[in-house]
Every structure is written in structure tokens, then in C-alpha cells.
């Protein structure tokens, strides 16, 4: 209270050349403001933001003992930082400064000069009234842990991990499956250049496996995340492999000898087999196998142990348990990828019911030389080569019944399939598309190439795939019923094989994961970036970044670019060594808090904790972003937002209202 | 054993005579509840009645007489305090007459206590200078 009585305010009204002075009578405003309560000095100057203008303020602070500064000039978005720094240089806490926006919100938008001057006075009075109640604040500095957690070992995660590890910082790369590689490891060729997917991916995977700065944790999942940017503690559960990693040489004898064959639903998309002890694919990194407990004969019946018998180094450990480890990291990159849209949901396309309807992933495995058919494109019977193939685009995408969005990759994927079918079988290929989307470098050229190869394109959404033949030429075939919107007629096209270019969708557990890491999901359950254009890999939670398809459908080049971008953002934070935390945070008056927990529920950042022993709320300043939603919600006003307290806002409002009322009285008197 | 009960009493503040229940928990007064069926207050109270219990455990409440000695207030016994007051009264009355003394009584006293105060003023000291705030 005492301090407020002693508030010594300096007011500085800026001409901004003629930008303000051309409309507002700045001299009048400055003279008038000199009579406001607590104002010690009031000046006007041509350009307050110039170094001379700033020096004026600094000199007055030092010579006249000013302890509050108001500058009436442009928008605080432009020069709040400038003047705060000037105050700081003169030894005045920057939070004892306030700005009145008389340019963007007055001089530039008001035609009448008298009215503009009145408004400038009201805004200045509001700022003076507010600044008296402002309090000095200190920004908190916290050191940054240089270790980084990357979640997801697909191409985006691999790229991010390598970039950071190469810069000399340590990375924990956590992958849920037994090997890194992600979806890319399952593909045969990549569009538009048709490089072999494994050929370009494997070197990177090996690099990750050997990197001295990468701790690779496969067959592991993140259990919990605690803390804030620079200081996260992450709990990771390392699932039991039943193989001692320090002894296993990756020779593969165990897989040979294991008598139990299991259909491989994950890597081979259900088309091939693996053993109960397995690595998902020969180039897996790390190359240690995993025992699938649910199918292992020993775990089911208590006898077998074939793998143990034949393992020369003796690496099999049937008694291995899940391990939990806690790591300290400063930043987190989520690259958790996507799930393939389940084509069964589009029941009229017959997947799961009609054997020769394939999903895109199944087809990828069919064409892969290391796949179940050694790269032969054949029907479900395993031997017949199709003579005609229909490729349906936009399966589950751009569809009100399923996903509204475009899955981005399916057009190019469909074209790639058309090319591969043509190349491997010489079959007639039909592509059914809604719109052909071949943006980006060399994509449309690829489309032209496929056109020239003789693939037939039908523009229209496929209504149905059926085996109910109506005509003799349809017997034993799959009939694609489609409205050809270019020809304007219904068509029935009989083919031997149908490939559904399924869309991408968010991981089934993406909401759960988002909650764990304190970020949010869109309605489609993709992770939300901080800004859709200007901050695509950051999230609303500082220190948590997203890369690749977990943010939305993406092809390989974009995923790689995002992985690298996220790594760059993380390295920029690590380079700062310590990070400044917002000073205008919320604070709880513990004596008055009644512990109703409303503030906790409304906080978008989970920055408010409940101290159960005291029955009070408590703000974690490092997590608080200063939105003040809690202060708006608290009924007894026991939580307040520093620099935007009730008293400050009300004083500002009263300052403006009082000036407006005063002018009203004056004009009424003049009229009388 | 948890002991929660209500004790019916009359508001001490003014002459209206509103009633309320003093809520007590484990022997301590914890609040006021208006008495709904009471003929005078009919379940209502004014702001004074609602806060009538507040002073009981207040840290600033005087719990023993204080005497100013050498410019400092110091705790003393009732015996000492009353002797001092009686002595001063007699002294002032002897020096300046009974009308140099006045009595202000309190709304926080009961009717009977206020009666005693005026009786004391008139019969013992011999003055009609009596007033109080309980005649609201």
C-alpha cells in the first residue's frame, strides 16, 4: 500500500512523426496527463522508440526517481520489449512499465481529431491508473538437460535421433516394436523415384544401432512423463524379450529351430509367417529376437525350450521380467506415426470377405522381394498372376462416413502400385480416383509416366466391389461398380484383383499418448502443432515436439524433413543452456485457497497441482504459460495472474471510464 | 467422541432480541445459525448477528485487564485493576464532583448488566451521565 502511495509515474506521449501527432493533439494529451494522480512528469517527443526517446526515459528514471513508466505510442506488440529494456537499463524492473496504444487503436482508426485526442487521454489515463498497481516481477531461469527422448523409431524418429546424436547430444530412442524401421521397412519401392525402400532405410537403421550417442530401447514403451521443458523425467517400461541382449549374437539359429509358426499380422500384414521367437525382418535393428509369450510353446505348455537348447551363447532367459527405467531428458520428440485405415470398415469394398481384395500394405508385402511371395504379384491362392487389377484410391479418406481429410499419400501410392503391377505382371491396370493429387517435386511427372505406360484412369468414387456376376465376362471376377464422372455414366469393370489404397489415420492410442505428454489432439485425433504454418513441429507444451505422420498424413520426404526440423528446434533449445520461464504466471494465495480444484480443471497445461496434505492448489511456474484462465474461474479469487491481477485490470478500466465520464460532464456543462 | 450441538441464545448486539443457535464442535464455537421458528427473528439475522461469534477466539480479544504503566500496557489482575479504577473514581468525584464522570455501557452486555451500570452511575457515583449503544 505504501509503495503505491509513493508511485512516481512518468508519462511519455509519442508523436510517431505525424502518425499520431497528425490526428491526436499530443501536446494537449501530455499537458493533461501531468495532472493525473501520481504523475510526476509528462512529456511528448517526436519518436519515443528512437535511442534519444529511450534515453529520455532512462534519464528521468535516474534523475527524478521515477518508479513507474507509461508510454503512449504504438501497439505493445511492436515496442513493449523496447521500452521494457530501456527501463531495465535504467535499473527499473521492466514490469513497472505500461503502454497506451494510441496509434493502431486510436490515431489510425479515428477520423475526428477532437475525439481521437479524447480517446488518447482515456487510454493514457487507463495506463497510468493501471501502472500504479503493477509490481516488479523476475523471470525464472532453469537449466536445460541436454538428453533428448525420441518416441517412435520410424523414419521420422530415426532422422530426428540421428541429427541430435550427431550434434553430440545423447538420445533415448524408444520403439514399441522389437525393431526400428516403422512402416517404411515394410515397403518395397518408394515413390516417385522407385528406390528400394530397404536399401535407403537400412543404412540409417544400422547407424542408429551403432551410434555412441543413442540409447536404443526397442520393445519398450513410455509409461509416464513428469516435469517441464529442460527437466523431464520419463519412465520407460522395457518389456521382457526373454533374450539376454548382452549375450545374443543375432545368429538366428533360435528362429530356425523354433517349431512354432505364427501368422505375422504386424510386419507381413497377415500374409506371411514368423516363429514364436522372431525378429520382424532380417535387417532388424537391433537384431536380437523376441519371444512372443502368447504363442511360445514353452510359455503355453511348459515344455519345448528348443531355442534354449540350440542357443550357443546361452542367451535365452525364460525368467526375464519387464524392467522399468527412469531417464532425465530436456526435450521430447514424438514420432509415433500412423495406423493404416482398416479397410474392413468400408464393407462394400469387400475386404476380408472377397479374397482377392488386398490392402495397400498387403500389396507392399506382395511386391517385396523379401516378402511372402518373393516379390511375385499373385492372387490369394499364391500362384495365379492377375490379368487385370483395379486400384481404388481414397479408401476411408475424403469420406463423410469415415475420415474427412485427404490422406495425402494414397494417390502416389496408387500410381506406384499401378506401375509395379504393370512392370511385374503386364496386367491391365485401372485406377479409380476422386481427384488426382500429385503435388511436390517429380510427383506429377511420375503420374505422366504411369499414364504413358497405359494404366487406365477412371474418375469417380467406387460404389461397390462384388463377385456377383451379371454378365458372362464377369464370371469368376471381381466387379468394380463405379460412376465414371468424366464420361457421365455407370460402369462395371471386371478385374482379377483389387487393391485398396487405404488412408492413414491417427494411432488408436493417440489420445492416451497425447495426454501422457501433455499435448492435444484434433478431432481426427492427430497431434496438434503449435501453429499450423509457422510452428509445425512444436506443440503447445514447451519441450515436446512432434514429427512425421503423428501430426497428420505425410509421405516419406515430409516425415524426414519434420524429423530433422524437430531435431533442429530441440538443438536450438539445448544450445541456450538455460531457459527463461514466463514471469507473469499464476500464483495461489494458499491461506485463502479452499481447495475446490476448479483452477486445476480449467488449466490447459496441467500446471496446477493439488497439495493433498494442505488441501490447497499450487502452481508449477515452469509449466504455467500465463493465460489466466484459472484466475477467471476462481470464485474467491485466491489464484491470480501476475501482471494481470484483478486490481490492475479494474484500475485500468476505471481509469478509462473515469476519463470518459469526466468528458461527458464537461460537454454537458458546455452545452448548458 | 465427536460432539456437535447447537446452543440457542439471544443476539447481544441490539435491543431487537433476535435469536440464533451457536454451533459448537468439540466444545468450540464454530458458527451461527439463525433460529427459524423464533418468534422475533423468524430465521433472519443482520450482519452483526451473523458475525456475533467472531470475536470469541479472536487473537486481539482482551482476556484480562491491562494497566498502562510507564506508557506501556501491561497485564494485571482483576483485583489490582478494580482497586485502581475505584480509587480513581473516588479521587475524581472528590476533586471535581460526580457529574465529571460519565458512563457508556455496551450492547454486548445483557439487560441486567446494563441495569447495574445505570444503577452504579446514579446510586454510587451520583450522576445521570449514562448512555449506551443498546438502545438501537
Amino acid at each position, binding site marked *: 500500500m505504501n509503495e503505491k502511495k509513493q508511485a512516481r509515474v512518468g508519462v511519455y506521449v509519442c508523436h510517431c512523426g505525424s502518425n499520431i501527432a497528425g490526428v491526436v493533439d499530443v501536446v494537449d494529451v501530455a499537458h493533461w496527463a501531468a495532472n493525473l494522480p501520481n504523475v510526476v512528469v509528462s512529456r511528448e517527443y517526436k519518436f519515443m522508440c528512437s535511442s534519444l526517446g529511450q534515453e529520455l526515459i532512462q534519464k528521468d528514471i535516474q534523475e527524478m526517481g521515477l518508479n513507474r513508466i507509461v508510454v503512449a505510442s504504438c501497439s505493445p506488440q511492436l515496442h513493449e520489449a523496447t521500452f521494457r529494456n530501456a527501463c531495465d537499463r535504467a535499473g527499473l524492473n521492466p514490469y513497472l512499465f505500461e503502454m497506451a496504444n494510441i496509434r493502431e487503436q486510436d490515431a489510425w482508426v479515428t477520423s475526428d481529431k477532437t475525439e481521437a485526442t479524447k480517446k488518447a487521454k482515456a487510454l493514457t489515463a487507463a495506463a497510468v491508473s493501471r501502472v500504479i498497481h503493477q509490481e516488479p516481477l523476475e523471470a525464472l531461469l532453469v537449466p536445460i538437460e541436454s538428453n533428448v527422448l525420441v518416441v517412435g523409431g520410424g523414419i521420422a524418429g530415426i532422422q530426428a535421433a540421428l541429427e541430435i546424436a550427431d550434434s553430440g547430444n545423447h538420445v533415448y530412442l524408444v520403439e514399441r516394436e522389437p525393431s526400428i524401421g516403422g512402416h517404411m521397412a515394410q515397403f518395397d519401392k518408394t515413390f516417385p523415384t522407385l528406390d528400394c525402400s530397404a536399401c535407403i532405410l537400412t543404412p540409417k537403421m544400422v547407424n542408429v544401432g551403432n551410434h555412441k550417442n543413442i540409447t536404443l530401447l526397442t520393445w519398450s514403451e513410455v509409461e509416464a512423463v513428469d516435469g517441464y521443458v529442460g527437466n523431464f523425467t520419463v519412465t520407460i517400461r522395457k518389456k521382457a524379450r526373454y533374450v539376454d541382449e548382452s549375450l545374443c549374437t543375432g545368429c538366428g539359429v533360435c528362429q530356425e529351430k523354433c517349431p512354432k509358426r505364427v501368422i505375422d499380422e504386424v510386419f507381413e500384414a497377415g500374409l506371411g509367417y514368423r516363429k514364436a521367437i522372431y525378429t520382424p525382418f532380417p535387417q532388424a535393428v537391433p537384431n536380437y529376437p523376441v519371444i512372443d509369450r502368447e504363442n511360445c510353446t514353452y510359455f503355453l505348455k511348459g515344455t519345448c525350450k528348443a531355442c534354449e537348447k540350440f542357443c550357443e551363447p546361452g542367451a535365452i532367459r525364460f525368467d526375464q521380467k519387464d524392467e522399468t527405467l527412469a531417464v532425465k531428458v530436456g526435450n521430447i520428440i514424438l514420432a509415433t506415426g500412423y495406423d493404416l485405415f482398416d479397410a474392413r470398415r468400408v464393407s462394400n469394398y469387400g475386404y476380408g470377405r472377397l479374397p482377392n481384395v488386398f490392402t495397400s500394405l498387403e500389396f507392399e508385402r506382395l511386391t517385396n522381394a523379401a516378402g511372402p511371395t518373393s516379390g511375385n504379384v499373385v492372387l490369394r491362392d499364391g500362384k495365379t498372376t492377375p490379368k487385370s487389377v483395379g486400384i481404388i484410391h481414397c479408401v476411408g479418406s475424403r469420406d463423410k462416413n469415415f475420415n474427412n481429410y485427404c490422406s495425402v499419400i494414397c494417390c502416389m501410392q496408387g500410381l506406384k502400385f499401378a506401375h509395379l503391377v504393370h512392370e511385374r505382371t503386364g496386367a491391365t491396370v485401372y485406377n479409380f480416383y476422386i481427384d488426382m493429387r500429385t503435388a511436390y517435386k517429380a510427383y506429377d511427372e511420375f503420374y505422366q509416366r504411369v499414364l504413358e505406360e497405359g494404366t487406365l484412369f477412371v474418375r469417380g468414387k467406387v460404389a461397390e466391389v462384388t463377385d456377383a456376376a451379371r454378365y458372362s465376362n464377369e464370371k469368376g471376377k471381381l466387379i468394380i461398380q463405379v460412376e465414371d464422372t468424366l464420361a457421365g455414366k455407370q460402369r462395371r469393370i471386371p478385374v482379377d484383383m483389387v487393391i485398396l489404397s487405404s488412408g492413414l489415420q491417427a494411432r488408436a492410442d493417440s489420445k492416451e499418448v497425447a495426454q501422457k505428454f501433455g499435448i492435444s489432439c484434433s478431432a481426427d485425433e492427430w497431434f496438434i502443432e503449435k501453429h499450423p504454418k509457422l510452428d509445425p513441429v512444436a506443440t503447445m507444451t514447451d519441450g515436446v515436439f512432434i514429427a512425421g505422420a503423428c501430426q497428420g498424413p505425410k509421405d516419406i520426404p515430409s516425415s524426414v524433413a519434420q524429423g530433422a526440423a524437430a531435431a533442429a528446434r530441440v538443438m536450438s533449445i539445448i544450445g541456450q543452456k538455460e531457459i527463461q520461464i514466463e514471469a507473469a504466471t499464476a500464483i495461489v494465495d494458499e491461506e485463502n485457497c479452499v481447495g475446490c480444484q476448479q483452477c486445476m480443471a480449467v488449466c490447459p497445461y496441467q500446471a496446477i497441482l493439488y497439495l493433498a496434505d494442505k488441501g490447497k492448489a499450487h502452481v508449477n511456474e515452469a509449466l504455467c504459460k500465463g493465460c489466466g484462465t484459472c484466475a477467471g474461474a476462481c470464485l474467491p479469487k485466491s489464484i491470480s495472474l501476475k501482471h494481470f491481477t*484483478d486490481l490492475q485490470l479494474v484500475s485500468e*478500466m476505471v481509469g478509462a*471510464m473515469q476519463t470518459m*465520464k469526466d468528458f461527458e460532464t464537461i460537454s454537458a456543462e458546455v452545452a448548458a | 467422541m465427536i460432539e456437535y450441538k447447537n446452543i440457542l441464545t439471544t443476539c447481544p448486539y441490539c435491543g431487537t432480541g433476535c435469536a440464533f443457535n451457536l454451533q459448537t464442535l468439540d466444545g468450540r464455537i464454530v458458527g451461527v445459525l439463525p433460529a427459524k421458528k423464533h418468534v422475533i427473528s423468524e430465521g433472519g439475522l443482520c450482519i452483526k448477528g451473523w458475525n456475533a461469534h467472531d470475536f470469541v477466539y479472536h487473537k486481539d480479544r482482551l482476556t484480562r485487564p491491562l494497566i498502562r504503566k510507564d506508557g506501556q500496557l501491561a497485564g494485571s489482575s482483576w483485583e489490582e485493576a478494580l482497586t485502581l479504577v475505584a480509587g480513581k473514581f473516588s479521587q475524581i468525584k472528590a476533586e471535581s464532583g460526580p457529574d465529571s464522570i460519565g458512563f457508556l455501557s455496551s450492547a454486548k452486555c445483557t439487560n441486567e448488566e446494563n441495569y447495574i451500570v445505570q444503577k452504579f452511575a446514579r446510586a454510587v457515583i451520583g450522576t445521570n451521565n449514562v448512555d449506551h449503544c443498546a438502545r438501537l
Partner: protein
Amino acid sequence: MTEPKIIGFLCNWCSYRGADGAGMARLKYPPNVKIIRVPCSGRISPELVLRSFREGADGVMVLGCHIGDCHYSTGNHRTAKRMPVLKKLLEYAGIDSERLYVNWVSAAEGEKFAAVIKDFTEKIRALPPFTETMKSRKQKLAEMKQTEKEVEWTSA
């Protein structure tokens, strides 16, 4: 005819920048609205709005980011829940609920901001001054007596 006095609470990230945008585009609008910057529209408690009315504001504007675009992700969801209830309360108390205006203006919507201010100022201008409507009969009586006295004094 007195000019309406209007207080606008604007969020820092969208609406305040939208207002700056209107300035940068030199769009003209009435000077009646005095803007108070808050970090998020979720910071605006109903008490702040009511206190502005109590202070004599003829209208109060609450502008924030569009739903889904909040800088603080869900701060403006609170606005969307509190303010409709407050509008209803004003209505039940006999106060024209149009005096409280809630809308969403993004940083890019300078034009919308100027239009919104124009519309709202005109709407409020059409209503009687707020403090006038709030005067009790006693106050009005006292004022009448006051004027009578003045008239007597001047005529005498």
C-alpha cells in the same frame, strides 16, 4: 445526446492483434470503445464485466480467438461457457443482454474487428444511457428536486 461508453476486453493473441490490424489498414471506426488487453479471453471473469457496468459502461465487449484457435488451446472454451450464462443473468436482472457482446476476432480479421465495433457502438447508441436506466426512483426524485432548486435559485 451522450456518447456511449464502451469497454472492450480483448485477448492478446488474436483480437488485440486484429484491432492492431484494423489500425494498420487505417480502417475507421467510432472511438467509443476503450480496449483492455488480457492474455486470454479465459482470463475475463464475469466480475470484471459486471464491475465495468457498475462503473457506468454502456456496453462491454469480450473478444477472443476463434474456438479451436486459442493460443492457450482451450482458454476461450471458458469464455464460451461463462459469457452466455452472464448474458442470460443480465437478461433476468432486467438489463438488456445486448449490452454484453461476445465474439471471436482473429489476428487476421482487422476488417471484421472494425465492423464489429461499428455495429456494437450503433446498437448501444440506440439504447438509453446505462446509468440512467439503473437509477432508482429515489435517486431520480432527488435529482428532480436538485434541478428545481437550481431553477428557483437562478430565477431568484
